[in-house]
């Protein structure tokens, strides 16, 4: 794991400058059933392919952002700030 990641604020950095925040999942908008809650809390899609995920630039600007990464190749296809129009919900 020595690939590069681009922080939307700071630019290109070694991936170990960042903390991985897991795949982007939507928090239920209203009270979920216990099963839905457990799915949200404990189950991940864990895809072999393109995944939207949270990253935190721990050693730099200390801001969160969202990356689309291919989990098979570590190729990062896009990055965006949360709240940006193109950012996934």
């Amino acid at each position: 794991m020595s690939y590069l990641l681009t922080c939307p604020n700071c630019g290109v950095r070694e991936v170990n400058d960042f903390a991985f925040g897991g795949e982007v999942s939507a928090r239920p908008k209203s009270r979920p059933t216990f099963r839905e809650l457990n799915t949200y809390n404990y189950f991940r899609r864990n895809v072999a392919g393109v995944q939207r995920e949270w990253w935190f630039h721990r050693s730099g600007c200390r801001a969160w952002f969202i990356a689309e990464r291919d989990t098979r190749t570590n190729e990062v296809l896009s990055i965006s700030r949360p709240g940006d129009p193109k950012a996934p919900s």
Partner: protein
Amino acid sequence: MSRLPEQPGERINRNRVISFTFDGKRVEAFEGDTVGSALYAAGRRTFSRSFKYHRRRGLMCCAGNCPNCIVSVDGAPGARACIEPVRAGMRVEHVNAFPSLEVDAMSVTDKSGPFTPPGFYYKTFIRPRRLWPLYEKVLRNAAGLGRLAEEQPEREWRTEYRRRHADVLVIGGGAAGISAAAAAAQLGADVVLVDEGPEPGGRLLVEESREEVRTMVQAAREAGAEIIERGSALGFFDGLVPVWQGDTLHQIRARRHVLATGTIEQPLVFAGNDLPGVMLSDGARRLAAMYAVQPGTRAVIATTSDRGLEAAIALHATGVSVAAVADLRATPGAPASALAQLGIEVLPGHTVIEARGKKAVSQAVLAPVEGGRAGTTERTFDCDLVVVSGGAIPASSLLLQAGAQTRYDEALGHFAVTDTPEHVAAAGEVVGAGPRDAAADSGRLAGLQAAHALGFGDVDSRYAEHALGDAIARAGDRRAPVAVAPAAIGVDRGKCFACVCEDVTSKDIGIGIAEGYDSIELAKRYTTVTMGPCQGRMCQVPSVRVMAQQTGQSLGDVGTTTARPPWVSVPMGILGGPTYEPAKRSSIHGRHRELGGDVRWAGDWRRPYDYGDPQAEALAVHQAAGLIDVSTLGKLLVGGPDAGEFLDRLYPNRFSNLAPGRIRYGVISSDAGRIVDDGTICRLDDESFYVTTTSSGAGAVEEWFSWWLADWGMRVRLTDVTQGLSAVNLAGPRAREIMSAVTDLDCSNEAFKYLDAKHAQIAGVACLVLRIGFVGEVGYEIHFPAAHGEHLWDALLEAGKPHGLRPFGLEPQRILRLQKMHILVGQDTDSESTPFGAAMPWIVKLDKEQDFIGKWALEHYDGEALETSLVGFTMANGYVPTEGSVVTDGNGTPAGQVTSSRYSPVLDRVIGMAWVPAALAKDGAQITISDEGRTTQGVVQTKPFYDPEGEVLRS
């Protein structure tokens, strides 16, 4: 002595004689020699004993590829004598032979038949199991490649990392690499060239004059390329290439890569192919050309390509008498006619089928090859040198790690590189560009392409690139034809080693296949072929050939094992790098040292555990006053119009209704309802809160807060001021008096109540003072700029002197907080703990109108029967159970655990906290604690052990 007269390429300085010891005996060498060349010149032929059979092994590759000359240098094992430069006074010793290289007791294994077939250990020593420790001891002594000292001295040598960014990284400093580096650098690219040889030049150092090579290298250097000599590229990690050079690990990140790693000459597999005196053609030539050491007096040469023929000419020129040359090809290549003119016989279609000799080669048997087998018309020659050249395979490991593909090439008899990924180019012999001019052209082209891809160059240089590309395409493949060697030949005459590192013969691979290990990856793990020091350089292709022959598969179908880093053996210390451990220290740290604090790690902080007497320190807090440095607490400022609502959403209790100047305890829960962290929250004014977290949770809480903030997009400003503020807790019955001595602030209980927060000037420093009671006595937690740490600490200690104030460390604080049953998140809770289980239902405000993190889960758990609950307990017998001891239910089944336990000096009792079955979570219940076989009884207590109603705290 077998020194030759001066050679045009020699690296030795005959005017400087230096000496070192080998196995205690003095050896003389010239400056520029390697340990191997010096020992060979002094007449040594046996350099090591082999891994399993303890057979004699001598110099074979002279390039640091094979395992045959592994020695220990100054006590460090794993050095290759053939590439280790001599240094005056160095202490070189043999490995894996006892009592000596010449008389090795374990060499009986070689004579005693199939003593160590593949899987030998597993088959032979598995039963009886209780004897395995004994077996292991014997086996460890029998096998191996050296020995580390039992105890290493405190390390005095220095290692360092060096980060290097570059436009183009060229790996391999032969004709192709040097040309690539020069071409790219001349166009303005920032180029690094890495070469692992004694100096850049690769095979040119042997085959050309040194002056010519140095002119080429100088051109690259003058163009601005940085040349890392004697540096080994260890691997290719997503574009990051670690390069080991001396005590430095360069970490090179380039935008483009040119891999010009060349080829590795292959041995032939025949009977006795490991005898000292059997040498690769490049090895023999290196000894002669670079170190002016004559490799032998009378040689027999066996080759599959022109490489061996050229070696015959070169060796003849140095005075070696060449008895015969076997060329496996039906029609020997062009250099054969030159050999004929020298009167040297070339036998077409022949190869060597056996090398004979006791301590070293004395005879070689040549025979024609018919249908992969030796013909009957064999001829035997007396000789002391057998030069073999079994073809050259691409040194493609780094390319493969970078994502390149290979395919078996029938005509070449090896796996050729087919595709390389974007950003990575291969040049020179590794991709079949040879001979030397073609390699240089291919390097130059790769260098131009790399520079152009990065925007360097101009119209002229681009034209030059295209012209060069066209010329290379027109010239086509200029390599002379080669023959493919049989998998093994002469197998009925003696051991034919496919792998000299691990002593694996062609027969062993056959046994493995017969036992079902019939894929190359399985065979590797079973026979350990390719797993030794050469990492497949010498044995990958031979083992694949044997496998293909014996399974009837094609070589392409057998395939190769996965190329993995590191490409060369590297000391662990180099990978470990510098020894500094990032440590956080409070601004008062120096004072703790001076006061005799027992400083230890606490998370990533260095903290005083105590100042010599934790119990007395704890008692001082009850009887007079104590002062503890709590600067490690996490500290966050949460500001902005939505700050209150933000905290309401993050915590199960409320903060928007907290009055300015007041403090409230909070527990952070996850969406699964589990406790994440805890701390106090102080409202500074309408729009700002001061949040403290646990010491270990500071970073995680900041990330947690900013993560939800990023998701929710509220009008909140978050600032982590953990390291900016020092904090000390002044606590005890005399704390109020001490405060009065250092501040004008009215500290009376009426003016400054429990859970109030006040600004104050203390000893001239602006502070925030929180009246909280983690340790159970009246206490003032003082937060102030870290730049004043020592000043304030000194002032408080000074003011407290007449009152009996003493500093206390982390350990007494743990006793004090346990007396109050104040939990430590992570110690008394784990990732499954909910506020309900942790006996803090009062902190969960499910009637809060808005959603908060963990609400849904906590709603679910609310009212649900708990399995276990966190309670306090006391011990009647004075025994302090180990933290982590098991709490058992009535039947002796584990049902909980002790999380904290201490002797409390003020209560003169052993107290603790434990998770116990919910039915036992009531005052007076008996619990059974099983502590590593010892069973004791405790009594449950649900209210704090000390000051249960909090009267002291509020006084």
